């Protein structure tokens, strides 16, 4: 309890972000109980304005917008968390190991990272989705491809510093095995950077997922993606503006909360940045 109080005083914005993230998680987990209708259930009149029965109106094929917004939280969070955990973990392992091994392996791996990063992320994701086919899990796969090289580059630069430090030399000198050095000395010292990468990239992944749906290359159109709902809303921008407002508000709030939360986690884990950015 005292910790919560201290957090509130030291990081008021971060605490607000944490609250938003908590609500987002609660809505995502409780979606089946909270949503009055199914996300794909098209059994009402289309383009009904917000009312008591449909607080956020209905969409172009007569689905309840509120139910889709609620289920959308689950989709966003699922895609965001899974892709970030897999992508950042894979990239971090890649970056740490190549930094330790060094030499041609390291140079070669950096050229691969260069190649992927020279491509505009949205365009790469678009091409990946075209090749893989549109499904929620393929969106995750495309995001993993986008996130892995970025994480590899960041963690590599952190790991290079660790590899050069005296305690690493000491570990080598006492004859610790390569595996032991990587897992017991190198990895734990990259952990702070890893945590920051994970927390700051969840909102990025959520935005990319929605952007892909927005340009029609993400999850299939009947899936309740906030981005896809916005596209449908723009088609009906004059007659049914509620189709833009509610999904737009939800994604903005979610991203805002995640950014605030991620920022304060970064401030807390990295003392050099304490009170700096924000």
């Amino acid at each position: 309890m005292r910790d919560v109080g201290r957090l509130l005083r030291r990081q008021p914005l971060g605490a607000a972000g944490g609250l938003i993230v908590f609500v987002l998680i609660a809505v995502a987990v409780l979606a089946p109980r909270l949503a009055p209708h199914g996300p794909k259930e098209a059994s009402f009149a289309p383009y009904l304005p917000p009312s008591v029965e449909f607080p956020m109106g209905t969409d172009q094929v007569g689905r309840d917008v509120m139910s889709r917004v609620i289920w959308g939280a689950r989709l966003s969070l699922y895609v965001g968390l899974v892709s970030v955990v897999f992508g950042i973990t894979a990239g971090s392992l890649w970056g740490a190991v190549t930094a330790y091994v060094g030499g041609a392996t390291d140079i070669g791996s950096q050229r691969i990272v260069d190649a992927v990063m020279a491509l505009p992320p949205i365009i790469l994701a678009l091409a990946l989705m075209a090749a893989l086919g549109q499904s929620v899990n393929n969106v995750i796969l495309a995001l993993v491809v986008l996130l892995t090289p970025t994480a590899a580059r960041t963690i590599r630069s952190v790991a290079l510093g660790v590899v050069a430090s005296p305690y690493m030399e000491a570990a080598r000198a006492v004859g610790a095995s390569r595996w032991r050095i990587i897992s017991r000395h190198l990895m734990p010292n990259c952990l702070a950077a890893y945590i920051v990468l994970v927390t700051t990239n969840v909102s990025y992944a959520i935005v990319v997922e929605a952007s892909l749906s927005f340009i029609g290359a993400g999850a299939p159109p009947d899936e309740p993606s906030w981005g896809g709902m916005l596209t449908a809303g723009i088609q009906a921008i004059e007659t049914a503006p509620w189709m833009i407002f509610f999904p737009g508000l939800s994604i903005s709030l979610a991203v805002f909360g995640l950014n605030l939360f991620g920022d304060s986690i970064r401030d807390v884990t990295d003392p050099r940045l304490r009170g700096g950015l924000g």
Partner: protein
Amino acid sequence: MGSYVVRRLLLFIPALIGASILIFVLMRLVPGDIAEILVYQTGSETSGVQQKQIQQIRQELGLTRPVIIQYLSWIGGAARGDFGKSYTQRRPVWDILRERFPRSMELAILTLVLALIWAIPLGVISAVHQNGALDYVARIASLSGLSLPLFVTGALILYGLVRVFHWIPPLEFVPFSEDPVENLKQLIWPALAQAYYISAPITRLTRSQMLEVIRQDYVRTARAKGLAERAVVYRHALRNSLLPVVTFVGWWGGRLLGGLVIMEIIFVVPGMGTALVQAVSQRDYPTVQAMVFVMAVVFLVVNLVVDLIYIWLDPRIHYA
């Protein structure tokens, strides 16, 4: 210095080859090709005839050759500036690039200019009034810019324009050279929306850099010798805090061409992004490959130029 530039230019080669192979292979993994799309569109009668037609088109376009041979002949052409012919528009991809590239470039430059005019002063104000009311307003304004996804800002601006001004994006694109006013009327909205988005990180970076610099000894000296606060802030502190901002802006500038897709779609700007999305869905391999290649080149060149500007701005930095 000279050898540094040469080394950087040499690194372009593996990056471009890797990037082009990636896109090349991805496009060929996309189910269905241009031959199938063309033939099934015209709807001939029997499938036997259709199969023959498909084979014929593939033969003509060289799609029956092994993928490695296709890639080598493509990269050979690209190295000599020949990107081949578009499958769907039946004209050289160069013509499409010449038409689309300047439009996206104009939008990108307009966006960057707008973002800088607004973001840097805001960052300075925020730092000068650290933890004051103005600082909080500026921080929340910039943080919400970062949190509103591009398509949300774009959709809201479009909604405002449609509702208040009964303005809908024109279907014809007017080049700047023909009618600057009409041209800007069309591009200012997507540029504003995009600029709001990228200004957030610029503001935050300017602020944190300013906060660091403003505590330096030379700033105290400047104050001590009785300079006006304005001169201290702008002449002494700001100049020295802009260095990391330059790198960051350069990174975004290089990314902008590809990142404009969403704005181009919402505001119906016939630029490179819209052309790319269309070309991917039509399996127009030469157009996709050429556009992505150009975007990658722009990204690498802008990054190099920014690093050179950095050296020029800060004499303390030396690259061997």
